């Protein structure tokens, strides 16, 4: 217990840089380090799947290589589930709100890109992923600022 409650009227700040660039409350948040390493493993498996899938021709290896991508997504989903369980209630609510917002935007943009693909005969999935990640970061920082 402090003798002086020196922060009586102090305002607090969220880790905005982590929220924007990483999409969560940073490595110092409860479970943040574990989330970082788990999502890194997921991202590496996903990258491996994306790199290998166009070059693997042997049917014996095609299925294992293709399973790398959904496996990586499942690992990332599980990592976030574990992370959310460790956050305190307000941080968790902010993270949920940003997921909901990003999901809505991602669906809207995804469907638009899909429809545009019929006209332009091409889609840019990589650009879509970057856009979705950007929206999530922006949503997190905007929502955190409310509190």
């Amino acid at each position, binding site marked *: 217990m*402090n003798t002086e*409650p*020196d*922060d*009586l009227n102090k305002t*607090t*700040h969220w880790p905005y840089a982590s929220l924007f660039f990483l999409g969560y409350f940073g490595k110092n948040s409860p479970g943040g380090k574990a989330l970082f390493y788990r999502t890194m493993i997921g991202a590496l498996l996903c990258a491996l799947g994306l790199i290998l899938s166009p070059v693997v021709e042997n049917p014996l290896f095609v299925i294992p290589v293709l399973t790398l991508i959904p496996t990586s997504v499942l690992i990332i989903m599980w990592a976030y589930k574990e992370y959310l369980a460790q956050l305190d*209630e*307000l*941080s968790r609510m902010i993270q949920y709100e940003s997921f909901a917002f990003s999901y809505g935007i991602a669906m809207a943009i995804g469907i638009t890109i899909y429809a545009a693909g019929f006209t332009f005969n091409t889609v840019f999935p990589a650009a879509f992923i970057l856009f979705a990640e950007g929206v999530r970061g922006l949503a997190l920082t905007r929502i955190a600022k409310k509190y």
Partner: protein
Amino acid sequence: MKNKLRVLRAEYRFSQADLADKLGVSRQTINAIENDKYDPSLSLAFKISHLFGKPVEEIFENGEGDR
């Protein structure tokens, strides 16, 4: 929802960090509750009530038009 958390914290001479530690939440959560930006869950409200030895309704006041 209005609350007396800041007043109680001052009475007990807790910093926001002290209180956050005791309640197992982040300092930002305490700050948001004190500034009426966030209404705590029922479980957290009871923890606060227990910590300060006061009934929930004495700490939190449901104003008109609140959710």
